[in-house]
């Protein structure tokens, strides 16, 4: 008896919810903001993937003879086999003679990797903690007090402090950016759990004895997907900015890795004479973050209309 009624509750709620969800996704991918942002982002992803074949040279290659060249200068390179080759440095070179164009193109990889990694890890950790907090009542108060405390520390400062403790590196930078983001995800997931658990279909599922983990994964978690995707997009955009800021300040990713922040950090001292070292990576950085934010706005308007009313 209980098995039958559980099936009824399940199939009814799932089919209704899934058609609603499918049409939402269709709506989302037709939203002009999602299309514009998504296209720019796709181009950036292509650039990152195809970096070696986009006319780049080794982005870490130091060339003492070709230091501080303005954009468009023709530079003669000595190849390993002793012959020379000419190449136009369309974005100039930095103070170590490294090709800025190659560094900017390769930097796309670092920034996108950081953005995606931070968003995914923060959402994963935040979802787990949020589910626990929303569902295990006696832990809720304790968890939320810690989250309140974390949120009271301005995000970049917390990231800076964590980097200083863990020493610089790509992985430590990613986690340092993740930690301040986690409470935001936790709050979101927890609020969804608290609302959904009062819904009749969840009460129905509980009354027919659905095990907790099925309840979580089949009935509660799907409700968090849309707002989490929206949140994740904005987290990714912010993470790319924070990584660039940390690297720019010289406390982020080690300087030998070509990230946009690092290129700008290197260009700081000679900015007055050679502003290209800051402008080119700056344009890429702003364009990427802008694309993700525009896409996020579009996703929020379609997937999470409740939130879009607020902002």
């Amino acid at each position, binding site marked *: 008896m209980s098995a039958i009624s559980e099936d009824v509750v399940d199939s009814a709620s799932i089919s209704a919810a899934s058609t609603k969800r499918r049409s939402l996704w269709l709506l989302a991918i037709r939203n002009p903001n999602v299309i514009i942002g998504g296209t720019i982002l796709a181009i950036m992803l292509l650039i990152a993937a195809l970096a070696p074949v986009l006319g780049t040279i080794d982005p870490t290659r130091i060339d003492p003879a070709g230091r501080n060249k303005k954009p468009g200068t023709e530079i003669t390179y000595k190849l390993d086999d002793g012959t020379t080759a000419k190449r136009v440095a369309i974005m100039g070179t930095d103070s170590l003679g490294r090709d800025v164009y190659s560094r900017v193109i390769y930097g796309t990889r670092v920034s996108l990797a950081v953005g995606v990694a931070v968003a995914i890890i923060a959402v994963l950790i935040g979802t787990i903690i949020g589910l626990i907090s929303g569902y295990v009542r006696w832990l809720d108060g304790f968890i939320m007090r810690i989250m*309140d*405390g974390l949120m*009271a*520390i301005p995000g970049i400062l917390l990231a800076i*402090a964590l980097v200083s403790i863990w020493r610089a590196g790509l992985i430590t930078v990613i986690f340092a950016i993740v930690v301040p983001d986690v409470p935001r995800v936790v709050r979101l997931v927890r609020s969804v759990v608290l609302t959904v658990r009062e819904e009749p279909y969840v009460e129905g599922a509980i009354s027919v004895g659905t095990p907790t983990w099925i309840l979580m994964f089949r009935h509660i978690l799907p409700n968090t997907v849309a707002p989490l995707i929206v949140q994740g997009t904005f987290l990714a955009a912010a993470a790319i900015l924070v990584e660039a*800021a940390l690297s*720019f300040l010289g406390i982020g990713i080690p300087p030998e890795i070509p990230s946009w922040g690092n290129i700008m950090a290197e260009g700081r001292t000679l900015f007055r004479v050679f502003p290209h070292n800051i402008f080119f990576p700056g344009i890429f*950085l702003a364009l990427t973050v802008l694309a993700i934010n525009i896409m996020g706005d579009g996703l929020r308007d379609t997937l999470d209309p409740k939130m879009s009313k607020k902002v």
Partner: protein
Amino acid sequence: MIDFIVRRLIAIIPVLTVVAILVFLMLRLTPGDPAAVIAGDNATSDQIADIRTKLGLNEPIWTQFVIWIGNMLQGNFGESFFFKKTVAELIAQRIEPTLALAVCTLIFAVSISVPIGVLAAYRQGSLVDRVVMGFSVVGFSVPGFVIGYCLIYVFAIELGWLPVQGYIRIGVNFWGFLERMILPSLTLSVGFIALISRITRASVLEVLNEDYIRTARAKGLSNRVVLMRHALRNAAVPILTVIGLGIAILIGGAVVTESVFGLPGLGRLTVEAVLSRDFPTIQAVILMFSVVYVVVNLLIDISYTLFDPRIRY
């Protein structure tokens, strides 16, 4: 009202306690001897032993926390071995540029963003609205240091109107001070303007649909009075809230902006402290900024009643 303020004051105690515990644990969770970490890379073994006894590092961790928090509450933030000063002295020296930057930024940001937000809401769907909304997305996306360098390039290098970098104390030369504040606070304002104009537009839009706005219009009040006295005032609470939350952005942005413009403030101090792994300074700065953030938001909470008499505590 007093009752409410007392209740809110009590409510921030657990938050600040958690912040203190997190900041305290940060150092204890670093690999290695905390005393050696605090003393920095060039410390002698005598200095390290001295710190050990001062911090009670041989005691259990709870006692250590009590000693540490007791010192903090008395304004004794420890000693910076890198700068060869007490942390309290360091902070006192560096506070002026940051405070000036924050105040100038707030003035800039609010005086620009609130009018354009109201305008965008009033002309919803028009070109003005689209430009404002478009700007706010761009403002969120362009990093502060890129904006800063663009401003330096245009106004300081190409046009030569303003100095590139540096800081002059407000008491020394007021014009020099003002000149050097314009570009940094403009830089820091951009993200803030984006945030506030967006929320102003949204909350004014919501208020414009209310019955009392129709009533105000019906009795023949001019658009300006309706917008300023009725709409904006009622939209003030969400705007204030977002300004409070934006303080976090302001603090984070100050770290970057101070570095771009060579302002010797607390943000720059934080970066210097991290680069030299000067932990007592890092801890004190983070703790201080968090307290400021929490207290500012508390004050804003309390100020709601001034703007919206419907809110009673």
